[in-house]
């Protein structure tokens, strides 16, 4: 038998306009945790989707336990003992934990599903691998951490001995991440092999045995973790030396611009999402909101911008209440908003870039007069922004859909910063972008701050918050647990706060 459980040779996968995987070789040993490292868009998920049978490679061969195989669909992968936990969870929300785990391989009694047997099996697996879940809970009612355990159980239930985990820690607190790493180590002790996708260097150092680095669809190298260090990995990943910190002068905070007092609000399902949140942002500073996904960040941004009603408390902008006002009224008072999802909120993808640049100002002169749109003014405006913010687009009339993600985001940012707001709310402004674009955006945020604007930065990336924000408010279950100075804190402290525990000896609040 071969030394490698997985061997991928010369895998090439092309998508329209891009070679996502370019002759990639990957070899995974039995019983190891093999990390796959690369920037956003490097081609990691694509490679693993090929291994799992979701995509077919254009070229290349795959050997599993020494046998050459054609993985035509996930069924084949399952049969070969390959299981995958996807970057975006593949769980059916209204189903129970048990239903999700047995789906597609249900134990039967006659024609019906044997739920008793299914539950027993789930319990047994859950105990054996230390993955605590409630078999009868509905997915939509359980935490993200538990959802992830369900995903891992799904693969174990199917008897997988090769586990692919695609960015499993993106949604976890540092503490939860440590737990997950312990689970993974437990799994390899039980004889499983794990491929761990991530672009977080620290996790690799803590968990992996071997690491393969991918850049722009190509393998840069495979190294044992013992023989490398974060700086080297970063350089491999990005292709140059990386400055981990953006240059910025200390903030010169001015008067309070935004004041949030005891605000409560419900989420889409009618469950409380904000539970009396309070904080303030001053002119000339960047307040970062850190927290694990799903603790009310989205709802917070929505109540601030008028997209969601508050059920209690108040929001003051320069001393005047703006809560429960329509989005336009709030925008007119000088609040600009870079939304967390540029495709859902930020852009009308089938509108031209020109139209998107006036998406919230089309009704004002010079863009419209007496109810009619003024095309020349709209075009001139767009051309100006495209120039200033270096948005790469063939023309003003090109639909936003045809731009790359980074350029779409630049367009949104250009539009919002150009409004010259008193308060700039930036939600996940760099999600899914490459390093160059991220640097550009961070610089723009700091520039806005230096011009005396108040900036609220909501991000799931701790690094981003630590680098860009001046003060950091940590949100947990719809409340601010603590506000700390960015220069005086570290990932560990933030991690504890993000998990809801207040460090000893510290008083909460501002």
């Amino acid at each position, binding site marked *: 038998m071969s030394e490698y459980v997985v061997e991928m040779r010369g895998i090439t996968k092309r998508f329209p306009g891009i070679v996502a995987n370019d002759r990639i070789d990957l070899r995974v040993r039995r019983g190891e945790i093999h990390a796959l490292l690369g920037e956003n868009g490097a081609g990691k998920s694509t490679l693993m989707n090929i291994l799992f049978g979701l995509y077919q490679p254009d070229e290349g061969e795959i050997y599993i336990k020494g046998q050459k195989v054609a993985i035509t669909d996930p069924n084949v992968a399952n049969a070969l003992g390959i299981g995958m936990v996807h970057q975006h969870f593949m769980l059916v929300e209204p189903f129970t934990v048990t239903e999700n785990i047995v789906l597609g391989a249900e134990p039967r009694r006659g024609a019906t599903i044997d739920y008793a047997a299914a539950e027993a099996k789930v319990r047994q697996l859950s105990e054996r691998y230390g993955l605590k879940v409630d078999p009868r809970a509905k997915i939509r009612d359980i935490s993200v951490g538990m959802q992830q355990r369900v995903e891992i159980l799904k693969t174990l239930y199917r008897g997988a001995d090769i586990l692919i985990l695609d960015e499993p820690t993106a949604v976890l607190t540092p503490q939860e991440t440590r737990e997950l790493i312990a689970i993974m180590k437990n799994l390899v002790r039980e004889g499983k092999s794990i491929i761990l996708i991530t672009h977080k260097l620290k996790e690799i150092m803590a968990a992996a045995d071997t690491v393969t680095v991918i850049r722009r669809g190509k393998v840069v190298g495979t190294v044992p973790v013992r023989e490398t260090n974060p700086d080297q990995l970063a350089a491999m990943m990005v292709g140059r030396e990386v400055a981990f910190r953006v240059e910025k002068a200390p903030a010169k905070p001015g008067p309070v611009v935004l004041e949030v007092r005891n605000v409560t609000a419900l989420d889409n399902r009618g469950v409380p999402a904000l539970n009396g949140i309070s904080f303030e942002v001053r002119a000339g500073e960047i307040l970062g909101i850190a927290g694990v996904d799903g603790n009310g960040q989205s709802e917070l941004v929505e109540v601030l*911008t008028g*997209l969601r009603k508050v059920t209690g408390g108040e929001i003051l902008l320069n001393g005047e209440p703006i809560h429960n006002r*329509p*989005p*336009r009224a709030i*925008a007119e008072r000088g609040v600009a*908003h870079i*939304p967390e999802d540029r495709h*859902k*909120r*930020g*852009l*009308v*993808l*089938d*509108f031209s870039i020109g*139209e998107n640049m006036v*998406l*919230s100002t*089309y*009704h004002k002169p010079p863009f*419209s007069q007496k*109810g*009619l*749109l003024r095309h020349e003014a709209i075009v001139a405006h767009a051309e100006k922004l495209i120039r200033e913010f270096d948005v790469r687009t063939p023309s003003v009339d090109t639909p936003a859909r045809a731009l790359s993600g980074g350029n779409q985001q630049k367009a949104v940012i250009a539009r919002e910063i150009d409004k010259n707001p008193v308060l700039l709310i930036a939600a996940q402004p760099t999600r899914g972008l490459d390093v160059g674009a991220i640097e550009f955006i961070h610089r723009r945020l700091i520039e806005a701050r230096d011009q005396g604007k108040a900036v609220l930065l909501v991000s799931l990336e701790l690094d981003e918050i630590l680098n860009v924000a001046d003060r950091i408010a940590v949100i947990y279950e719809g409340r601010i647990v603590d506000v700390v100075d960015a220069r005086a804190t570290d990932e560990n402290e933030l991690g504890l706060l993000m998990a809801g525990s207040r460090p000893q000896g510290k008083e909460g609040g501002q």
Partner: protein
Amino acid sequence: MNGTDRRSLQTRFMGLFLKESALVPAVSVVLGLAVGALLMLAGGYDPVAAYGALYEGVFGNLYNFGETIRQVTPLIFTGLSVAFAFRTGLFNIGAEGQFLVGSLAAVWVVVAVDAPAGVHALLALLAGGLAGALWGVVPGYLKAKRGVHEVITTIMMNWIALYLTNYLIRAYLKADAERSVEIRPSASLQADWLSALFDDARIHLGILLALLALVAYYVVLWKTRWGFELRAVGLNPYAAEYAGMDVSRSIVSAMMASGFLAGLGGAAEALGVYGYMAISAIFPGYGFDGIAVALLGGNTPLGILLGAVLFGALNYGANTMQRLADVPIELIRVVIALVIFFVAASGVVRTLVGLFRRTKGKGGVTDGVAS
């Protein structure tokens, strides 16, 4: 002229019409007619004679041509109505009912209110449009505020319109026949000079109004603030909300505008063709055909015009097809349904075109050798 030249000319000419956006509708029409021909063969009819009669029924004489335009007129209105809603992301199956209440309101206003010629017709048209708009408010409001799917509500509103207009005519407007009393001539859209041009066909001024509506459709959607909002809501309601647009209001106002167009069509039909409104157990069908028109025309002004002309001609020509070739008129319904189906399932069309091109490509070689 040698073969290569001819072919390149031919491809260039075809290219004019077979731009990617027009390819699917064009092929769909051909496919629809082809399947219709197969059905006729299966039924023992002569498709050549039938389509010949169809052509005759449209272009055969001035009268038929004028009547075809008469038939096209309401389809432009209902096609615009459905398309306007589509542009805002709404599927208005209710043009049928909006058309009916538009007819009734127009007739009623003419009967109840006196006014000088010209003004009278304008009043009546306005009333028809407003009644249609009112009929659009209900589904629009329910969609915006309660999330009720407009497809179901508009269908229900159609039935309500049918029975309610019957009731109102019977209760308040009934003449000695099963219809409303006749309108005063001061509000008629019939124009002798126009009819005279077409051998006394019932073509009426409504066609000019319809062409105006086409222009208005374009201007409103692409040149005004309101249109910008409506299109944004239609393409991405979340982004529209983010940008400060009032999505609910847009939905309601779009349904109203859509209803207005259909109601206007109904009013024009009542004032231009009949001069009264009949009590009827069945729908006139213009609203449903409007869906076909909008789909085929890709919701663009020019496309809607072409779609209305095509379906109006098919529908009107079907009468002659029946008279001269004995083919049941339902055949044309089948053809129209197939055209919509192929447009909707454009993948089917593309696949077929792909197959065709491949075989055609091979054929082209022998062709070249032969010539």
